[in-house]
C-alpha cells in the first residue's frame, strides 16, 4: 500500500480538525497579545491619569505594575501555547503521522 498523498491527508477529518484547532489557538492568542500591548499603548495615549494614580500610600503608580504585567503576561502566553502544543497538538500530529504511515 502506498502512503497517502498530500491531497488525501488534507481530506482526512482528523487533519481538518487539527488545522482548525491550531488556527483557533493561534488566532486567539495573537489577538490577546495585540489587545494586551495596544491596550497598554492606548492607555498611555488617551488615559494618562489612570496610569498616574498611585497605589495606596506608596509612590508606585498604577502604570508600573501594568507595564510589568504586559511583559509577564506576554511570556505566560507563550507558555500557554507551548503547554497546549506539547500536550495536545503533538499528540494529534503523532496520531495522524502513524495513520498515514510516515
Amino acid at each position: 500500500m502506498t502512503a497517502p498523498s498530500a491531497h488525501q491527508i488534507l481530506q482526512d477529518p482528523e487533519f481538518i480538525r487539527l488545522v482548525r484547532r491550531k488556527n483557533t489557538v493561534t488566532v486567539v492568542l495573537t489577538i490577546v497579545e495585540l489587545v494586551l500591548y495596544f491596550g497598554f499603548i492606548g492607555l498611555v495615549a488617551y488615559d494618562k491619569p489612570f496610569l498616574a494614580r498611585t497605589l495606596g500610600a506608596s509612590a508606585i503608580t498604577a502604570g508600573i505594575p501594568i507595564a510589568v504585567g504586559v511583559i509577564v503576561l506576554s511570556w505566560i502566553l507563550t507558555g500557554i501555547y507551548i503547554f497546549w502544543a506539547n500536550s495536545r497538538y503533538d499528540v494529534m500530529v503523532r496520531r495522524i503521522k502513524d495513520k498515514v504511515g510516515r
Partner: protein
Amino acid sequence: MQAPQQSVIGTLSPLAITFFMAFVLVTLGITYWAARRTKSAAQFYAAGGGITGFQNGLALAGDYMSAASFLGIAGLVSLKGYDGLIYSVGWLVGWPIVMFLISEPLRNLGKYTFSDVVAFRLRMKPIKTAAAIGSLVTVLFYLTAQMVGAGSLIKLMFNLPYEAAIFLVGGLIIAYVLFGGMLATTWVQIIKAVLLLGGATLLVVLCMAQVDFSYPALFSKASSLYGAKFLEPGGLVTKPLDAFSLGLALMFGTAGLPHILMRFYTVPDALEARKSVFYATGFIGYFYILTVTIGFGAAVLVGQKAITAIDAGGNMSALALAEHLGGGVFLGFLAAVAFATILAVVAGLTLAGASALSHDLYAGVLRHGQSNEREEMRVAKVSTVILGILAILLGLLFQKQNVAFMVGLAFAVASSANFPALVMSVMWKRFTTAGAVASIFTGLTVAVTLIALSPTVYEDVFQDGKVKARAAASARAVRLEGYARDAARAEADLQGRILAATQGLAAPGLPEPARVKRTAELKGLQADLALVQDGGLPAALAEARAARTTADAAVRPAPFPMKNPGVFSIFGAFFMGIVVSLLTREKEAEEKFEAEKVRTFIGIGAAGASGH
C-alpha cells in the same frame, strides 16, 4: 544620595581589559573547537541542527539583547523615568507573535534562511533575489547602528580610539563566523547572554540591597527626588498614530529579523523551536525588568546630575551604578560584558548577512539551487569576510553621523519587507511569485522612503547643523528669559555655579574630554554673569529671540510628519501582495500549497538540518 566620587568611567581600566581578554580567549577557544566540527553547509548555517531548545533560547536572547538596549534603556529610565519603561515593553511584545505565527511553519518548511520558506512553492529565482535584498537591507542597517554604537561606547567606556574599537570588533567577528560558523556564533551568544543576565542580576541585587529589597522604597525615593511625574507617563506618546505605528514595527519586526529567524534551524525539530522561543521570551522579559530597575536605581543612588556629567544621553547610567555599588572591579566586569554583547550581536548579524549572500543569492539565484555543498561553503566563507569588512567600513563611514534611527529603520524594513511575504506565503493559497516580489519591494521602499522624509532623518540627520543651531538658539533664549525675570537671583545663582565649576575643574585626575567640556561650561557661565552684571541683558535677550526665530525658520520641516512609517509600510506590503497575487495566477504554486500545508502542520518531509 552620597557625595559624588570621582568616576573612573572613561579611563582604560586594567580590570576591564583583563575581563574582556578572558572573554575573547574563551570565545576564540570555542571557535577553534567549533571549526573542527564545521565542515558541511548545514553545520555552517545551522550548527547541524544539534542545539537544544534551552541553549537556543539563550542564544536568541543573546542575539536580541544588544548593548544599546542594556545601556540605552537603563539610561532612558534613569533620566525619563516611566517613559523608559513604556519603551522597554515594546521590545518584548514581538516574541509571542514569533511563537504563534512563525515558529512552526518556519521550522517545518525551511532549511537555513526564512527565504527558503517564501520560496517553498513559488519561483526560486525572483523570490530569493527579493528576499535576500530584504534580508541584507535589514542586516546592514542593524549592523551600521551596532558598529557605530560599539565605536562610541568603547570610546566612552575605555577611552580607546574609535577606529581601534571598530577594527577590533570587525576582526573578532570575522574570526568567529568564518572559522566557527553557526556553532561558534551560538556559543558566543550563549556565553554573552549568561554574562549579561548574571551581571545585570547582580547589579539589581546590590542595588535593591540599598533599599532593603523593597520596590516601594526605591520608588518612593525616586518620587521624592524627582517628583511624582517621574513615575507617570510623560511626553513619549504624544501622537497616538505614531505610537501605534512604532508598536506594529516592533511587534512584526521581531518576526522578520533574519538573524533571529535563522536560529530556528539550529534546533532538531518544531518542539525544540517552540521551547527556544518560550525560554527566549522569558530571558528577554526578565532582562528588561532588570534593566528598568537598574535605571531607577541609578537615578536614586547615583543621581541624574552625576549620570549626565559622564554622558548627556544617560548611556553610562548602568555602568555608573555598577561603579557606585561594586567599585572598579564590578565596573570593569560590566564594561567587558557590554563589549562582549556588542561582539555577539554583530556576529549574529554577520552570519545572517553572509547566508543571504551565499545561500539565497549565490546558491538559490545564480546556481538555481543546484550548487554543490563545497562550492556553497566557499562562497559562504567569502561572504563572511565581505560582510565583516563591510561592517568595519560602515562603522568608519558613519562615525560622525547620528545613527540612532537605524535600528528603527531595520525593524521597519523587517516588519514591512520580510514579515508580510513570509506570513502570506504560508497562509494564503492564492499568493503568487509576483505578489510576493511586489509585497517585499513595496514594504522595503515605503519604509525607507518614509523614514528618509520623517523628522528623525529629514531634519535631525540631513539638516543636522541647522537643527543643532535651532536647539542652541532656543536654549539661549530660554536661559536669558530666565535671567531677565529675576536678575538678582540669577546673579547669585551664576556666581554659585561658577564657584562649583572652578572647584570641579581643579579636581585631580579629571579625564581630558571632561576637562575640555567643563572649561567650556565655565566660560559660558562667566559670559552670562558679565551680561547680567553690566546691564547688557535686554539687548542680548532681544538678539537671542531674533536668533531663535531665524534658526527656527532655517530648518525645513519634514514632509512626512511621523517618526515611524510602520502603519503605512506594513499595510502597503500586505495590500500590494494581495492585489498583485489576485491579478496574477500561478497554478503550480496553488498545487504545491497542499503539500506545503501538510508539512506546515505536521512536519512531514521537514528538512532535518542534521540530515544533510
